[in-house]
């Protein structure tokens, strides 16, 4: 049961409400955005606040997602705290600019409301869109519920703008399952966010009084150095994300304390690794499987996909007898993205824990815990070379 104090504070918010409210508390200076289902309510809410003067932000209405991210690139380069939201085809349409933001090292936060890709025409959740930007040089955080979506937005701004990191950051929420489902959220206070999130202090910015240039002609040696610097910054981002999650945990009393969340038996015979809402559904399945007398089960949810939580995945592989990885997307002609990354890293770390693949929940396919219980038992039978 909820305590009386919590009961008074709780708002019933969709995931989109939770994101929009956290963005307002984070005091962005520029938002350039274009609507696409299921992310539209985020920017609709924010544009209403901006229109009514309830939010002090430069809101730029644009003609496409490509223009939205171009606007964000300009705003961040000019030294403004910057936000946008998109989904699915919208993310693909802005992808040239997504890479530009990433490779130009422009801090900003984008909410990606995960949705399948055409064709067929489908508005529901999967992770093809999220995986499409994995190499764009952005931090990628994935929330499991509306509260986490709310709390991660200020963390995203903070780590993105940290001079030791200085890359853009995306907060992913599952389309409809979070974006349109109304759940209980304890709102962050303005004071908490103001204390947590310092003003953006750009390292470089476009300023007529002190001209600089972003992205000018770069010869091969320097270009390689830029990418290497970027890689090292993303490696440092792990530490800063951990610190950001820990600080947010201390301030709120909610446990966001690491790049991964471990559930159930830590040294289980079978450990399930996944992202987003399906990880919570997995916890329910784990509880049932642990009563069936077919071995012990546990789960590890990745809160961060970029930077990839290498140490935590190795730790999971050392703890579990075998691993099942859930992907909510395909990589045609190859193995699914998350399971591939995990196998790759475990091979590099010389760990031989069997890693099995389960692809499910694409295009909004319902995956209740009861179905997961059956699927995990089937996947356990997979032969691993």
């Amino acid at each position, binding site marked *: *049961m909820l305590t009386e104090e919590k009961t008074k504070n*709780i708002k*019933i918010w969709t995931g989109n409400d939770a994101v929009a409210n956290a963005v307002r508390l984070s005091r962005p200076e520029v938002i350039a955005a274009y609507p696409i289902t299921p992310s539209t309510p985020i920017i609709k809410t924010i544009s209403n606040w901006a229109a009514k003067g309830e939010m002090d932000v430069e809101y730029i209405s644009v003609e496409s997602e490509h223009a939205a991210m171009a606007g964000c690139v300009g705003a961040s380069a000019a030294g403004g705290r910057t936000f946008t939201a998109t989904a699915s085809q919208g993310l693909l349409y802005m992808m040239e600019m997504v890479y530009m933001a990433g490779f130009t090292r422009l801090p900003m936060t984008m909410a990606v409301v995960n949705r399948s890709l055409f064709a067929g025409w489908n508005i529901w959740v999967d992770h093809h869109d999220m995986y499409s930007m994995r190499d764009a040089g952005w931090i990628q955080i994935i929330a499991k519920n509306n509260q986490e979506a709310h709390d991660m937005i200020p963390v995203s701004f903070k780590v993105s703008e940290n001079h030791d990191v200085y890359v853009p950051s995306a907060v992913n929420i599952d389309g409809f399952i*979070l974006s349109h*489902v109304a*759940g209980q959220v304890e709102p962050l206070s303005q004071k908490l966010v103001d204390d947590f999130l310092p003003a953006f202090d750009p390292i470089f910015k476009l300023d007529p009084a002190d001209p600089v240039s972003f992205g000018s002609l770069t010869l091969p040696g320097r270009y390689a150095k830029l990418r290497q610097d970027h890689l090292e910054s993303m490696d440092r981002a792990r530490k800063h994300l951990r610190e950001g999650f820990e600080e947010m945990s201390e301030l709120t009393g909610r446990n966001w304390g690491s790049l991964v969340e471990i559930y159930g038996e830590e040294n289980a015979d079978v450990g399930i690794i996944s992202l987003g809402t399906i990880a919570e559904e997995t916890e329910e399945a784990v509880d049932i499987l642990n009563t069936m007398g077919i071995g012990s089960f546990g789960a590890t949810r990745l809160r961060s996909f970029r930077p990839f939580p290498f140490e935590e995945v190795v730790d999971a592989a050392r703890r579990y007898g075998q691993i099942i990885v859930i992907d909510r997307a395909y990589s045609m002609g190859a193995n699914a993205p998350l399971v591939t990354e995990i196998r790759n890293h475990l091979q590099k770390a010389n760990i031989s824990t069997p890693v099995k693949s389960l692809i499910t929940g694409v295009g909004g396919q319902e995956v*209740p*815990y009861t179905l997961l219980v059956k699927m995990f038992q089937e996947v356990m039978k997979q032969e691993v070379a």
Partner: protein
Amino acid sequence: MGTILAYAATYDGKYVVSIPKYGAERRGAPVQNSIKIDDKPIKRHAQIENADDIVSLDSSLVPRFFKEDLFDGKGTLTLNASEYPSAYDIYTPEKFGLCNVQEITQSEGLVKSGSAMTGIPMLGAYLATSDALTMDALHYAIDQVFGKNKYLEANHKAVDRTYRETKVRRR
């Protein structure tokens, strides 16, 4: 309706999520919403397959979508109807609630663009049938959602009436 029930459940100290079913929505088409209420945090994100309680604003719909008995002597079924429809003979809930919510809604002036807004008044009938949440919680929830809206008082009055006027039949 989902948001109101979620606020009401919160007031009563419960954990809750409200899951609308999205598709090609249009006015007049059947819509569905799942509400999960529990004493512990809710981690199940999928739509409800086997509900404990069913509340229907349109008594023609339940037999179209639920061909078999879901209840097995448990749970509740609350209908916006003044008569017990024979198509419901297959269902065996523990309690069956009947209320002409349509008429109460219209008489309280909860009409917009010619349509009676039966959703919130229906919840008074539901709580009369199920005891799942308290009426204090429902009134709190209406205040939370409607605030200074012109329909605030009419909704408060309507749920009190539907709560009082619901006929509850035990199996």
